[in-house]
């Protein structure tokens, strides 16, 4: 089956998911991101790579943080940026996604950054747009959040350069997490030999092992000797009812405390895509501790998004 995010000559046309992307493209993005890390430290934080281009951040679902990082990334590349919060405007008036997209196409936008509550929405939009438009998935339902996955592996690579000798644990709500799916695909594609998921069965998809991960339900067992601990966000609405009994019990079993982290390797790093629920999925002392790389993740996020945008624009 032809991967819709690649052009006929194998170049990146859209970034919709990490799944199916070859390792050389992932490395190209990470290497390019490396070169953009320094831009933020310059006095003039801009490069002209997207000058004259218009990037539309189309958010059918709210997200200040992700939208802001995409906006900063696009502006640092000298693009014109338009932000649309669609769930509060057109869609509530009955306009379909395609109507919205068609209007933006008519305004000669060059790149769409799309967030949507439905899995597959970015694929759907990418199928619809013309060949001169690039689509970046900024999170679709439970499916994928590829730039987050890439910035996470960028962070891992920065602190643990030998990817072929790592044990990585992803902890928490894998079932509903687009971040987890993207992280898993990114890590396995880049050759990480052992990716673990740690969660109660209620927060894991059926057949999750088919994604190439080892499944653990016990935190201490799952964290034993790992190099990287990736925590996932747990939404408050999932705290009660049939998925989990309570925040307290979740924290007891799956919250990352220093005592549990001590099962990992002494130099293990702790990551979190944010925003964090302190005292539910992670203890404040760990989140702010010396093993945490949570804030550098955010910084690298801009460089990775700049890399993706510049590569897509260059391939167009």
């Amino acid at each position, binding site marked *: 089956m032809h991967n819709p995010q690649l052009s006929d000559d194998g170049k990146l046309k859209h970034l919709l998911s990490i799944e199916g992307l070859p390792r050389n493209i992932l490395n190209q993005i990470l290497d390019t991101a490396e070169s953009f890390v320094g831009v933020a430290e310059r006095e003039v934080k801009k490069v002209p790579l997207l000058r004259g281009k218009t990037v539309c951040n189309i958010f059918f679902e709210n997200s200040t943080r992700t939208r802001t990082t995409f906006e900063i990334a696009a502006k640092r590349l000298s693009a014109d940026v338009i932000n649309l919060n669609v769930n509060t405007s057109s869609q509530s008036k009955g306009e*379909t*996604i395609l109507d919205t997209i068609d209007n933006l196409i008519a305004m000669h936008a060059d790149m769409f950054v799309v967030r949507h509550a439905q*899995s597959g929405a970015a*694929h759907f939009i990418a199928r619809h747009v013309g060949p001169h438009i690039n689509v970046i998935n900024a999170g679709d339902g439970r499916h994928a959040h590829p730039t987050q996955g890439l910035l996470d592996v960028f962070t891992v690579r920065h602190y643990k350069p030998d990817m072929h000798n790592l044990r990585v644990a992803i902890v928490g709500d894998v079932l509903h997490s687009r971040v987890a799916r993207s992280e898993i695909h990114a890590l396995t594609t880049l050759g990480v030999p052992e990716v673990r998921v740690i969660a109660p069965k209620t927060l894991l998809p059926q057949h999750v092992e088919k994604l190439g991960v080892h499944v653990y339900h016990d935190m201490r067992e799952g964290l034993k000797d790992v190099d990287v601990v990736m925590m996932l966000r747990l939404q408050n609405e999932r705290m009660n009812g049939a998925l989990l009994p309570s925040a307290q019990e979740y924290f007891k079993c799956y919250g990352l405390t220093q005592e549990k982290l001590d099962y990992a390797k002494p130099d293990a790093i702790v990551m979190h895509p944010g925003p964090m629920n302190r005292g539910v999925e992670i203890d404040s002392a760990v989140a702010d501790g010396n093993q945490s790389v949570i804030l550098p993740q955010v910084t690298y996020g801009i460089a990775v998004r700049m890399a993706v945008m510049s590569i897509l624009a260059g391939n167009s």
Partner: protein
Amino acid sequence: MNILIKNGHVIDPKNGLDAKHDIYIANHKIASVGKAPDSFIADQTIDATGLVVCPGLVDLSARLREPGFEYKATLESELQAAVAGGITSLACPPDTDPVLDEPGLVEMLKHRAKQLNLTNVYPLGALTSQLAGKQITEMCELAEAGCVGFSQADTAIIDTQVLWRAMQYAATFGFTVWLRAEEPFMAKDGVAHDGEIAARLGLKGIPAAAETLALAAILSIAKETGAKVHICRLSCGESIAMVREAKKQGLQVTCDVSANHLHLTEHDIGFFDAYFHLKPPLRSQRDKDALIAGLKDGTIDATCSDHTPVDDDAKLVPFGESEAGATGLELLLPLTLKWATENKVKLVDAITRITLAPASILGIDSGHLSVNANADICIFDPEQYWKIESKALLSQGKNSPFLGLELAGKVRYTLLNGQVVYQN
């Protein structure tokens, strides 16, 4: 009008016919197979050399969308599609708007279908009022108006006491209860099989247990009440074993499978292709294999089209928001033939699954070519391949997961009551 169909390969499972014969039609009925009746003079002769002549197909599930959803399809467009698919009798579920829970609505539908005179339409009445699962309908009145069974369409009865009473009441009068086995809480908001692909694509899954759990409840109540039950569109391998066991125990249970599920699995969803959003969802390869085998060994009695015309706008949205369903009337025959060819099933057995067996489930005198039977006949070319393209389909629903595929089996003539209603 007298019609002679000559030189055709006649396949009639009921009468054990599977050879070259001539068929003589007089006064809307089959006058003779083989030998010309005395003083028979044909007004029309159809040369069926190289073609298969079989009973008109009987489809157990075709949504015609009238009344209420005429923007999706009309009775006329869908009955045209039915005859183009060789179908001369079909059952339609009651999930129209308004729901088929009033005798007047059923009479109107029957009357409209009769006026069109293309395919016999056999409505299934709603089992509960408004399909709401609370109040059982006036089944006797509805049966008198023309309903051949009582169904909940895709809406489950949540209150098992109501289900029990509905089946008990239906059993009093010998009515068949048509149910799709899906436990609604487990299936809630689900859009795909809860398996490998849903895990990968982040789609809300419907576990196989949603089907087996509901099926266990239905079979248990059927045993208790003695009701005749038809299970619609099984999708899981484990369900086959359960039905097999129920049949062995002597329960009056029959079941069908959608032709789509004989050929597709969850993997076909690919990159969120909404044309593969079906109900029940496409399941695993193992489930598909079990359905194929179950149909072959007769545990599954019949294949149906599960025809569900969906307008383009309802598919032009992300997968999870799209409406489930696919057009199917014109594909029932070729998809059944494909199943037969790929699984070394005799043509006569394949024809049985779409003629005699579904007719028997419906309790109608159809699906055979006996002398004096209504001359409802399908004549098709088993060797002719045709490409499934939207524009080639007569149904108003142009969405099919098989678009672009070439399938063998093209209907050349359809006869209803001894009249040619389709010719290609």
